C-alpha cells in the first residue's frame, strides 16, 4: 500500500472542474450535486450550479423523461457560469448516459453505475446495445463501479433492508466523486447525521455507502484520475453558498427591515417561484405575513390590500401567474400604491417548460396591462444578485409608490454561487413616512386631505386607514389629480396619463451610473439583462484574451431605462444583445434609441454558455 504522501503526490491540480451528476428522478441526484457543491463551497472554491430536473415529481423510472441532473462548476478563480461542457459525467443509469453523454467534453470522464445497465433499463433508454460494451464510450475515460451491489453489501450487516439500502447508492457515488476530486468528507458526514437525525438506520446506510464509495476510489486504483482544485482567490469576507430564490427572499426581508415596513406576501404555488413563499413563510419572526391565496389574482389582490394598509405588499409567481395578475397591476398603477411583483420566469407560452429557464417575459412586464400603465422593471443578474435586485425593487416601490416588477428566472432561482455576505449596517435606510394629516385647503378654506397631491418625485402620499383626519376614497376609475375625485374629464385623463408616465420616468434619476466593463469605448458593445450576466461576463473575458476589444453593460433597471444608456449605445459598430427570448430587449432598445442592435437568441430552456456566446459574437463581428 502506498503511503499518504505518495498518494497525495499523485493528485493533479487543475484550475477548475465541471461535474455533472445524472440519474433517474428517484436517484437523489439533486441532493448529491447539492452536497458536492456545499463541500466545495466550504473548501473555498468559487462555483456555479445548474440543477435540471423534470417537471414531473415521479416521472416513469428509468426513462429519458425521468432524467434528473445537477451540474456544478468549481474553480480556483472567479467564475460566472455553470460551465460549458462538463469534464465529468456521473451516469447512474442508461437513460442518464443517453441524455447527458452528448454534453460531456470530448475525452471527458464518465463514472458509471454498472448495476443499472441491464436489459430493462437499456430498453427504457432506447439503447439497442449496451453502451458500456459497444464502443460508445471509446475516447472517454471510464470509471465503472457496481454501485448498487456494493452499497447493498456494506449495508447488509447494518440491518438495513436491501430495498432501503439501494436508495443510498447516490451516497456511494458522492463518496467516490468526493475522493476523486479531493473534497472534504466531514461536511457531508455531518450533514447526513443532521438531516436524518432520529433515523439511525438511514444515517448508518448513507454513511456506509459514502465511505464505501470513498474507499472504492483507493482500492480500485483510480489514483491517476484524482484532481484537486485550490480555493479561489476571492475578496476577503464571509461567504455562503446561496441560490436565487433564497437570496431574493432575504433581499425582501432586508429591505423590509431597512424600511421599517413589514412584508405581506400573497402567493400561489408555482414552479419555479414557490420556494420564495416557503422561505418567507419561515421568517414570521421578522413580522412577515404570508398568505397562500386561492389563486394568482387573490395573491396579488391580498398584497395590494395589505399595501393599502401600510405593509410591504409582495406577490411572487412565474409567467403564467403574471398573466393573471395583469388587471390588479393596472389597479395598483392607478392607486399609486407600492407593490412588488416577482416573476421567476420559466419557459412559455402557456404551461411551457415549468422547470426550465427562459427570459421571455420582458415585454409582458413592460406592456402586459391594458391602457397606458407604466411601471418600473428591475432584474437580477446572478443567484446572489437576487438579494440586491429585491432590495432595489422595494426601494423603488416604497419611494415612488408604485408597483414594481422584479424579474428573476429559473436558472437564477435554483442555481447557486458563493456570496460574500454584506454587512447589514451598510444597507441603505429606505424608511418611509405615512401621511399624518390634511394636505390641502378646500373652497371653504377647510383643511382637507387630497390623496393625489404629489411630492417632488411626483409620488402621492402613502395614506393608511386608521390615521385621523385623512379619510379618503381611492379607486380604479380615473380620478382628478390632487383631489382624487372621480373624473371623466377628457383633459384630466390626458393629464393623468402623462403624469403616470412622467412619475415613472423620474425614477431613472435615482439610478447609479451605468458601468461598461471590458473596454468601455470598444466598437463592440454587449448589452445584457438578467441571468445572461454570467455567460456574457465569461465570453467578454475570453474575447479579450483572444485580443478582441469588447465592452459589456448589464441592465439592472429595464424600465425606465437608465438616463445614460443612450449615450453608451452611441457610435458603436455593433450593439449585441444576448437574451433568452427572440429579441425583446433588442426591440425595446431599437425603439427607444434607434440603434441597430442585434440579438443573440437562445430559447431552449437552457441558459447560455460563454462558449456559444463567443462563437456567435465572432460570427456577428466577423
Amino acid at each position: 500500500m502506498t503511503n499518504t504522501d505518495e498518494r497525495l503526490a499523485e493528485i493533479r491540480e487543475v484550475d477548475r472542474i465541471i461535474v455533472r451528476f445524472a440519474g433517474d428522478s428517484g436517484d437523489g441526484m439533486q441532493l448529491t450535486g447539492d452536497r458536492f457543491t456545499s463541500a466545495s463551497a466550504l473548501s473555498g472554491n468559487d462555483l456555479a450550479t445548474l440543477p435540471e430536473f423534470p417537471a414531473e415529481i415521479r416521472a416513469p423510472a428509468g426513462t429519458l423523461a425521468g432524467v434528473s441532473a445537477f451540474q456544478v462548476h468549481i474553480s480556483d478563480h472567479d467564475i460566472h457560469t455553470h460551465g460549458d461542457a462538463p469534464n465529468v459525467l456521473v451516469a447512474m443509469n442508461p437513460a442518464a448516459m443517453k441524455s447527458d453523454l452528448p454534453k460531456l467534453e470530448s475525452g471527458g470522464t464518465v463514472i458509471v453505475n454498472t448495476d443499472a445497465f441491464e436489459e430493462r433499463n437499456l430498453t427504457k433508454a432506447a439503447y439497442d446495445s449496451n453502451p458500456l460494451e459497444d464502443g460508445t464510450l471509446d475516447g472517454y475515460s471510464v470509471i465503472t463501479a457496481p454501485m448498487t451491489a456494493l452499497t447493498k453489501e456494506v449495508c447488509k450487516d447494518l440491518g438495513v433492508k436491501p430495498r432501503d439500502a439501494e436508495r443510498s447508492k447516490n451516497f456511494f457515488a458522492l463518496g467516490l466523486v468526493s475522493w476523486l476530486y479531493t473534497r472534504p468528507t466531514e461536511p457531508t458526514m455531518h450533514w447526513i447525521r443532521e438531516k436524518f437525525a432520529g433515523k439511525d438506520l438511514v444515517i448508518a446506510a448513507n454513511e456506509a455507502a459514502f465511505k464505501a464509495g470513498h474507499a472504492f476510489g483507493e482500492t480500485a486504483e483510480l489514483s491517476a484520475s484524482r484532481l484537486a482544485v485550490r480555493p479561489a482567490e476571492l475578496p476577503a469576507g464571509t461567504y455562503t453558498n446561496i441560490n436565487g430564490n433564497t437570496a431574493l427572499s432575504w433581499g425582501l426581508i432586508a429591505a423590509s427591515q431597512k424600511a421599517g415596513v413589514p412584508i405581506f406576501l400573497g402567493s400561489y404555488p408555482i414552479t419555479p417561484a414557490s420556494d420564495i413563499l416557503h422561505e418567507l413563510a419561515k421568517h414570521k419572526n421578522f413580522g412577515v405575513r404570508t398568505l397562500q391565496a386561492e389563486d394568482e389574482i387573490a395573491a396579488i389582490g391580498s398584497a395590494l390590500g395589505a399595501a393599502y394598509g401600510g405593509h410591504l405588499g409582495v406577490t411572487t409567481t412565474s409567467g403564467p401567474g403574471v398573466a393573471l395578475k395583469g388587471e390588479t397591476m393596472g389597479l395598483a398603477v392607478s392607486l399609486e400604491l407600492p407593490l412588488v411583483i416577482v416573476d421567476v420566469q420559466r419557459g412559455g407560452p402557456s404551461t411551457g417548460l415549468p422547470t426550465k429557464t427562459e427570459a421571455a417575459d420582458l415585454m409582458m412586464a413592460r406592456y402586459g396591462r391594458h391602457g397606458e400603465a407604466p411601471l418600473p422593471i428591475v432584474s437580477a443578474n446572478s443567484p446572489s444578485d437576487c438579494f440586491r435586485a429585491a432590495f432595489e425593487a422595494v426601494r423603488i416601490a416604497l419611494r415612488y409608490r408604485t408597483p414594481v416588477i422584479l424579474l428573476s428566472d429559473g436558472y437564477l432561482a435554483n442555481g447557486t454561487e458563493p456570496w460574500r455576505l454584506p454587512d447589514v449596517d451598510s444597507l441603505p435606510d429606505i424608511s418611509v413616512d405615512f401621511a399624518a394629516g390634511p394636505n390641502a385647503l378646500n373652497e371653504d378654506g377647510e383643511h382637507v386631505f387630497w390623496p393625489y397631491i404629489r411630492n417632488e418625485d411626483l409620488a402621492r402620499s402613502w395614506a393608511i386607514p386608521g390615521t385621523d383626519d385623512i379619510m379618503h376614497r381611492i379607486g380604479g376609475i380615473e380620478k382628478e389629480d390632487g383631489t382624487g375625485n372621480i373624473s371623466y374629464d377628457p383633459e384630466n385623463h390626458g393629464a393623468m396619463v402623462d403624469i403616470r408616465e412622467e412619475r415613472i420616468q423620474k425614477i431613472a434619476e435615482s439610478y447609479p451610473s451605468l458601468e461598461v466593463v471590458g473596454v468601455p469605448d470598444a466598437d463592440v458593445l454587449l448589452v445584457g439583462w438578467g441571468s445572461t450576466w454570467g455567460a456574457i461576463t465569461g465570453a467578454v473575458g475570453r474575447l479579450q484574451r483572444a485580443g478582441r476589444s469588447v465592452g459589456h453593460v448589464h441592465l439592472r433597471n429595464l424600465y425606465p431605462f437608465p438616463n445614460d444608456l443612450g449615450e453608451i449605445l452611441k457610435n458603436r459598430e455593433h450593439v449585441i444583445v444576448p437574451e433568452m427570448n427572440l429579441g425583446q430587449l433588442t426591440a425595446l432598445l431599437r425603439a427607444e434609441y434607434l440603434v441597430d442592435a442585434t440579438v443573440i437568441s437562445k430559447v431552449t430552456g437552457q441558459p447560455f454558455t460563454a462558449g456559444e456566446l463567443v462563437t456567435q459574437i465572432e460570427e456577428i463581428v466577423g
Partner: protein
Amino acid sequence: MSDTATTTKKDWTSDQEVRWCPGCGDYSILTAMQLLMPEIGTRREDTVFISGIGCAARFPYYMNTYGMHSIHGRSPAIATGLAMARPDLDVWVVGGDGDMLSIGGNHLIHALRRNVNLTILLFNNQIYGLTKGQYSPTSEVGKVTNSTPMGSLDTPFNPVSVALGVEATFVARTHDMDRAHMQEMFRRAHDHNGAAIVEVYQNCNVFNDGAFASITKKDARADMLIELTNGEPVRFGPEGERGVMLDNGIARIVEVDDVGVDALIVHNEAAPDSSVAFALSRLAGDRESPTPVGVFRALDSIDYGAAVNAQLAAAQTEGGGDLHGLLHSLPTWEVS
C-alpha cells in the same frame, strides 16, 4: 374609539354626489348604513369599505371613511390582505351578485372559509345593472335579457346556501324595504368575529323591477317572510299559524295546527353543524313561496387575522428577527 358617541349620519356621509338611478334600492341600504354607523361603536378612521365593480360597488365613495373601489370580483381578496395586515381595522366588503358570485365567486368562498374578519354585504338584485341588464348568477331560470333572448338556462345560486356550504361562520339575509331589519343584520354581522356575509335582497328598478316585491312588500311580508329568531320555533304568518319542520332532513312548510309547535325547528344560530341552517336556506327557491330572513348561522370562532397574528407573536417570543443572523444562517466560510 373616543368620538364614536358624538357622530351623526352626516359625519359618515362623504361629500360625493350619489350617482345611483333614482329609486334604486341601494339608496335605502346606504341610508341604513349611514344611520347605523354612529351607533355601532367604531371610529370612521378605523373603518374601511372595499368594493369591486358594479352599481353596489360605488358604495365606498359615499361613506366618509376609508374606502377602495377596486376591480371586478376582487374585493374579498383585497380585503383579506388588508384585514390580515391590519386586524385593528373594521373592514367591510360591498358588492353585487355579479361581482361576488360570478367573477369573484372564488374569492368570496375562500374569504368565507378562511373566516377572515370581514363584514360582507352582498346586494342581490338578480341582474347585471351597470352593463345594462344581462342575467346574473342569481337570476331565475328562463330570464329573458339582452344576452338571453330565449331565456337563461343556468341554475341560479342561492347565496345563503353557497355561504353555508363553504363553511361561513355568519350568514344572514335581509332586504332593502326594511331599514330596521337591515340595520339589525348589519350590526350583528359587524359584531361577529370572522367572516360575516349578509345577503340583501335589493331592487333594481330599471332592469329587474319588483324582483322581490312578492315577498318584501309590506302587505306580503307576514305571509312570505319567515323571520328566524334564535332559540325560537321557526314560524310565520300573520298569527304565526305556519311553521317549518324537518322532514327527512328537508325543511317543509307546515300548518302549526297540523303538526303541533313542538314539531317545528327550533332555530339555533350557533349549531356547530350547519345542516339545519342549510335546510332552511333551501326554502328560498323562488319568489312564490315563503323565504327565511334573519341570521341563519352565527358560530363563534377565531378569525383568520387573529390566528395569523397569533402565529407571528409565537414566532417572536424570543424577539424579532436578526438580519445579520439570517444572512449567516446557512453554512459559511471565511476568505481572508
